[in-house]
Structures are given as C-alpha cells and as structure tokens.
C-alpha cells in the first residue's frame, strides 16, 4: 500500500535560503563554473599541476590517462588518448582510460561548446609532455647517458644507435607515482613529428555498443535499489511559474504493494521495487495541480516576444559604413527546439551516512556535484559524481535535473534510487534551445563589397535552476546572465566577412517568462545563419553575382576561404543549378557559419514539391576547419551527425505549447529526421595539423542551415522566414 510521505526537508530548505550557506547550493554550470574556477581556483579534486593527476605508468609498460571530459558519442575517449599516446611515444593499445569521476579525474572544465578536444588537447599534451620529460630524465640516469642521446619507441627508451641499451617506461616508473609538479618546461612535439594525431583510429567504445554489451547509465543497478518515476503536469509552462501540487491521492496504488510515494514541496515521485511497478504507479496515482496560464500560445509566440523586451544591449559596434549602393533587410523567426535525446535521462543515487554517490550522464560533473551538495545539505567533498554515459544529449538536457531527483529520493529513503524519466518527462520538461527573432540589414557598394552590417536579435537566456530544485525546494527561477551562446553571435552574424561597419544588438527577454532555455547544439547559430546568410544571398543577387563568388569577394580570412572553397569544390559548385521535373523544383545554395570557434561551410541541394509543400534535402556537403583534427574519421562522423540534425531542425522540429504548457510530448508530436529524410551526406575535413584544435561537435550546423534556406530560394524564388519548413508554411509561401 502506498503511503504519502510528509515533507521533511523544510528545515534544510530554510537553511539553504539563509544567506551565507547559499553559495554551496548555488548551481554552477558551464562557462560560469570556469569563470568561478578562474577566480577561486578549480573545484576540489586532483591537483592539476601534478603529473600523477593525469598519467599513471604501469609495470607492464602501459599507461592510464585520467581524462576530465566526458564521452557523449563524440569520441573524446578515443581522441584524447591519441593525444597522450602521441606525446608519450606509446601505441594506442598501450594507453587506457578510467571512468570520469569528481574525485579521480582532473577538472578540465565542463564538456560543452565543443571543448573536449579544443581545451582538452593542450591540457593532455602538457601533462604527457612533462611525463615524457620526467621519464627521459630517469632513463638518462639509468642508462648513464645524456637525455639528448635517447630515443623512444612504444614506451621503450634506448640510446640512439645502440638499441640494446634500453629501459622501458614500466621499468622506470612501474605503478609508482611520478611525484613531479609540472614546471611548464616540457614542450609538446612539433606536429611534423606526429604519427598518431591526425590519423583515423577506431573508437574504443563502439564494439560494446554494437554488440549490446555497453552499460549506459540507464543500465546501472545497485543492490537494494528502488526504481522511481516523477509525477508532473505533462508539459512545462514558463520557467518562473512552476506548477503547484494541490493534492496527491495514493489510494489507486493499493494493488501495487511495493509502491511508495514521496512528496517534497511540489516534487512528487513514486517508487517501487521493480521498474514496471514504478511505471504502473506513475500511471495510476492521481494528482491535482494548479497550472498557471503562463505562456503565450505558440502561434502567438513572436508577437509576444516583441512585446516583452526587458532590456536592449549593444553586443558590438565597430567601424564606419562604406558606400551603400545596394541594401537589403530580412526578418525571420525560429522556434523553440528540443534536445530530444534518444534515451530519456536517468540517474542512480546512493545517499547515506552523510555521503552521496551519484551516477549521472552530466556534461559537467563538477558543477553537478556542487548543485547536489547544496540540495542535499552536504559539503562538496562528501559528494561524488561518476559520469556514466547516457545517449547523445547535444547540450544541457535533463541529466542534472534527474540526478537531483534521484539524490533527493535516495536521501529520504536511505536506499539507492534509480530515477528514470519517461519520454513525456523528457520532451515536456526539456531545457529547449530558445526561440529567436532576427532582423538583419546589410549594404554593399557597386562592386559588391559589403559596406555595412546590422543584426538585432530577440531572445532570452537560459534557466539557471533545475526543475526538481524548483519544485522540491521552492528555489526561485533565475536566468543566466547574457553572454556567448545566448547573445547575438559575432562569429556567425557577419564574422566571416570583412565589414567596414558592424553593429549587433540583443533585445533581451526575461528567461523566467518563457519555457526553460539551455544550450542546444550550436546554440542559436542555426537561427543567426538562417537569417543573415539569406540576406547575403539577396545582396549577391542584387549585384548580379554568384553566391559563392560574392562570398569570396567579401571573405574575412583564409580560414573562411578554406571552408567555402572546400564545400564548393566537393559539391562541384556551378551556380544554383535550378531545375524542375516531375512537378518538383530543385536548386542549390551555399552558407557559412560556425559556433564560437571554428569555420564551417556548406552547400545544399534541395527539392521542393510545391503541390504538397514537402521539402527534401537531396544532398548536403559540409566542410569544417576545426584546426588540427586529431582523428579525422571522428570529425567526419561529427560533421555527418551535424548535417543530418540540421536537416531535422530545418524541416521538422518545433516545440508547441498552449498557455498552460508544452504539448509536443513524443516522437509523433515532435518529429525528427528519419532514415528516409536523410540526404546524401558529404563531410569534408579541412585538416590544419599545425593549428590548435578548435572543436568539431557543432561548427557546421549554422552553415548547413543557411545553405538549405538558400537552396530553397534557388529552387522556388521564395524566402522562408521561419523554420521548420512544414508543408503548410511552404504552401503558404509558394502562394504568396
């Protein structure tokens, strides 16, 4: 028989709100955590200046690399060992990794904004170079020669020209600590010496994933564990207006003898010994909610956004406008879009005796540890988070929210708890990529040289507080400050062109008034490029120039030139190639874009059926310059995934809501690209082995979005001013 537990956590809730303790409960995630880390030092964990925090050398002449970045399906746990093997002169099969955990692996910052290789490579390089230098010093002493006389292969150090005089890394260190603090003296290898970095190496996790052996966080089981489900209204309303639980009736659970109910504030959950009983209990429990009508209906969204601007900020203003013979302006809108992870988020927590251990698929386990410590009333050092892979997440989905819920439940019941979200929880309460309105105005001179550029964006920032913390503790909604990925992006809004004058403006909405926002792969960049690059094409047409030639004329630097040329060459660019047959209109378009770093160029070939309004992307070519591509095969896979996901976001994806909440709650109401929607995909890696790595997870989506929009225009002569390109919208624009 289920029994309604009474709220027991009010005292701690009061404590958390009582001033000084607040910082402990302060949820720090992402770039802000880095900022705080820069100010106060890294969070508690292994000392990042000690070789031993990064590298262990074993007696069998293998090494273990401790990596502070998580595997999200992007291959970080293969590419970073490649970097280590390269610097240490080991083979790939001599390098192992361990699970990423707050007390074990060093803090490298959260795994977001394509940072794992961009930031992780120099960190791992530094540690491995120092380890190699320390090993060579010891080998020199052991062999009685100068360091300069030594060569290393496969972890065997020998005297140059005397291969018989040798000693292995394993013999020199053999499972003992280095006890060396990095002094910054060791210099990483020159890229001309690389034999592993820049090579295609097979990913280490794929065989288990294909064979059905891989353990995702969804598979984690502990002895004595309870299975839990949360109960909430079906879809979220505004971030700042969470629902209130009026009553919960456990009587319908009478037939599930192991079912239990937990309530803390407005946080409601059911638990059972078996997962199926928890699922049944979640279906049967009756709960009444006060759900404020806190949103505009999604069809009124953009008007409401214009009406509710809280502040207007100039992001960037520079230069003097040149001669403006041709002008164009364009306004367009993009909706909320969801992470829509394949696996609804899940976490397992074991909280007892004042200690918490949590298995979660968070992209930032250090920030999550801080949040959990606050929510549970523990010191950070009494909480441990072990990263355990979930499905691909493409940004900040509900992995931290589910971990908070699991931890609250485990603390209350004194048993391990596995909280698994349902599909409806995931779609209905996701932290969405925010909606956007953009207005761009651009001018060029008679020769087609750009002379002036202005972009104004309407959008809100991200949700700083997770829903379970709001519901359980009454923690007030709070938005992130505006900043990179939330503001109009200088890299995408004109950054690829040489511009005499540029002005970028944010019209900022209060995050609390809208559905929860968060970073969704290449945050807002698809929107910026969709809007800006259509205007660039329009100017090219006014001047009478080919869109690729017009971009070449105005390009900012050789990196942008490189991806434009690579995409155009791969596609055999020969103009927009407009044609029609069988009632279908075809055309090609080009686009440029990136995220914060990196350079992306794309060409799309699109087919439009004006009768049915269906749009099919037939072929997408995407070129990415990510600096040094450590593993070009993984980068090609990342480009491919980005291009397919861009098709999905351009053609299908839109979160719908009524004033009371989100209504797109499954794969039918929120469709995404399937096999039959997948175009021919041509990924192109622009390899720059001598350059720093700049990240490859999200830098070609904006370009692809722009290319699709421009190809639609080439095919139809019409400009789409919103996404996704649904049949209704396409038919309306064709009739206009």
């Amino acid at each position, binding site marked *: 028989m289920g029994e309604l537990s009474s709220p027991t956590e009010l005292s701690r809730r009061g404590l958390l709100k009582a001033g000084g303790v607040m910082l402990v409960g302060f949820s720090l995630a992402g770039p802000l955590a880095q900022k705080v880390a820069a100010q106060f030092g890294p969070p508690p964990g292994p000392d990042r200046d000690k070789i031993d925090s990064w590298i262990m050398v074993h007696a069998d002449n293998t090494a273990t690399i401790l990596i502070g970045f998580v595997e999200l399906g992007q291959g970080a746990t293969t590419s970073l060992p490649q970097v280590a093997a390269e610097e240490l002169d080991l083979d790939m099969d001599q390098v192992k990794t361990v699970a990423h955990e707050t007390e074990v692996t060093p803090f490298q910052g959260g795994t977001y904004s394509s940072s794992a290789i961009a930031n992780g490579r120099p960190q791992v390089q530094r540690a491995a170079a120092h380890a190699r230098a320390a090993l060579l010093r010891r080998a020199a002493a052991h062999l009685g020669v100068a360091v300069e006389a030594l060569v290393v292969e496969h972890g065997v150090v020998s005297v140059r020209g005397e291969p018989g005089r040798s000693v292995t890394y394993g013999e020199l260190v053999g499972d003992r600590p280095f006890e060396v603090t990095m002094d910054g003296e060791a210099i990483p290898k020159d890229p001309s010496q690389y034999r592993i970095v820049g090579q295609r190496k097979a990913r280490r996790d794929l065989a288990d*994933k294909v064979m059905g052996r891989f353990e995702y966080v969804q598979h984690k089981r502990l002895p004595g564990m309870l299975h839990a489900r949360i109960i909430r209204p079906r879809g979220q309303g505004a971030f700042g207006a969470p629902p209130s639980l009026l009553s919960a009736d456990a009587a319908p659970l009478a037939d599930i003898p192991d079912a239990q109910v937990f309530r803390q504030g407005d946080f409601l959950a059911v638990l059972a010994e078996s997962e199926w009983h928890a699922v049944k209990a979640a279906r049967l429990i009756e709960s009444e909610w006060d759900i404020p009508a806190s949103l505009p209906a999604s069809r009124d969204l953009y008007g409401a956004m214009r009406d509710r601007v809280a502040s207007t900020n100039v992001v960037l203003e520079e230069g003097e406008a040149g001669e403006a013979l041709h002008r164009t302006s364009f306004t367009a809108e993009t909706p909320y879009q969801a992470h829509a992870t394949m*696996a609804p988020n899940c976490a397992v927590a074991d909280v007892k005796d004042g200690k918490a251990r949590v298995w979660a698929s968070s992209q930032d386990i250090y920030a999550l540890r801080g949040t959990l410590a606050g929510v549970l009333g523990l010191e950070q050092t009494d909480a441990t988070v072990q990263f355990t892979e979930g499905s691909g997440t493409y940004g900040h989905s509900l992995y931290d929210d589910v971990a908070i819920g699991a931890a609250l439940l485990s603390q209350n019941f004194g048993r391990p708890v596995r909280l698994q979200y349902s599909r409806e929880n995931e779609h209905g309460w996701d932290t969405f990529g925010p909606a956007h309105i953009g207005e761009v105005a651009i001018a060029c001179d008679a020769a087609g040289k750009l002379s002036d550029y202005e972009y104004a964006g309407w959008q809100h920032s991200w949700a700083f507080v997770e829903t379970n913390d709001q519901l359980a503790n009454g923690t007030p909604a709070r938005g992130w400050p505006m900043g990179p990925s939330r503001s109009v992006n200088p890299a995408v809004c004109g950054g690829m062109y040489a511009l005499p004058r540029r002005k970028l403006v944010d019209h900022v909405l209060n995050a609390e008034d809208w559905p929860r926002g968060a970073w969704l792969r290449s945050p807002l960049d698809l929107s910026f490029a969709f809007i800006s690059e259509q205007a660039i094409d329009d100017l090219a047409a006014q001047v009478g120039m080919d869109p690729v030639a017009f971009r070449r004329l105005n390009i900012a630097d050789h990196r942008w030139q490189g991806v434009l040329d690579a995409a155009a060459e791969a596609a055999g660019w020969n103009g927009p190639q407009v044609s029609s047959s069988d009632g279908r209109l075809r055309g090609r378009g080009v686009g440029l874009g990136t995220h914060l770093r990196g350079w992306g160029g794309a060409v799309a070939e699109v087919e439009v059926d004006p009768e049915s309004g269906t749009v099919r992307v037939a072929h997408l070519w995407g070129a990415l310059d990510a600096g040094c591509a450590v593993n070009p095969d993984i980068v090609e896979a990342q480009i491919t995934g980005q291009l397919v996901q861009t098709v999905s976001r351009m053609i299908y994806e839109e979160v719908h809501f009524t004033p009371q909440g989100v209504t797109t709650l499954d794969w039918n109401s929120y469709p995404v690209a*399937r096999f039959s929607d*997948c175009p021919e995909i041509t990924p192109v890696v622009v390899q720059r082995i001598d350059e720093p790595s700049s990240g490859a997870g999200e830098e070609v989506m904006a370009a692809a979005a722009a290319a699709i929009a421009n190809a639609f225009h080439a095919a139809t002569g019409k400009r789409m001013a919103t996404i996704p390109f649904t049949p209704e919208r396409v038919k309306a624009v064709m009739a206009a």
Partner: protein
Amino acid sequence: MDTIAITVNGERHELAVDADTPLLYVLADTIGLKGPRFGCGLAQCGACSVLLNGQEVRSCVYPVGSAAGAEVVTAEGISAGGAPHPLQEELIAAQAPQCGYCYGGMVVKAAELLEANPSPSRDEIIAHMDGHICRCGTYPRLLAAIERAAERMRGDA
C-alpha cells in the same frame, strides 16, 4: 505474479513476473541484458527492439505474457556463440554509431531484413529501417554498413 517461460538468446528462463510486464523490463531488469534499451515506452523509436520468433517487436510495450514459450533474440544474441554477426562487424568497421543507444534496436531490425531478403535494395533497406530513430544522425554509415553486410552474407565480397 505469474510464472512465464521464455527462451532468450537460446537460454530458457522461467520467470516469476506479472504477465502484463513489458518484455523490456524483464530483459533489462530480471535477466540483465543491455541490448534492448528504453527509449520511449510508446513503440515509437525502436531502441528496445528484439526479435520474437524472428519478427521484430517493440519490447517496451510487448507484454511478457504474450511472449510465453517464444524465442526472443536481442542484439547480444543475433549470432551464435557470441561472435559478432557480419552486420555487427560491418557496423564496427564503418565506425557507424556515435552515442550508440539506438543500435541495440537497429542491429536486430537490420538482421531481420537480412534474414528475409539477402539482396535488399537501398530503398528496401530505408523502408525497412524507417521506424527506427537515430538522433545522432548516423544513418549514412549505418546504411552503408547494412549494404556491405548483405554483400558479405551473400558471398559477393
């Protein structure tokens, strides 16, 4: 509680479970398999797919009571003796998955096709697989790997 006998990957299990329990929870929780994975609980995405007497079913909605006496095969069991199925070898060779979560279902769905049709056209493969979502967008490498596996199983390659 009911007693239900099913054969999973060649091994017979007698299970004390409620007959209305979806097969997925029995496979994942009671037997401890990791091939079929929870994705939606609505039979919409295919992450939980298994073969039931050779036919693909969505285990997240298929009651274990209806599977009594049946032969269930998961991604772990599509080839005898634990060696990889040619399809799995080709998926690894192509480095097809990214997060890999959907592959537990993709593998059995593609194996079902290759069993029934050794020479599927590209359109036939796409039509057969279209009910399975891959959010990472790995369709191109997945498609190429299925084609290569079909060639190999026919002995063309």
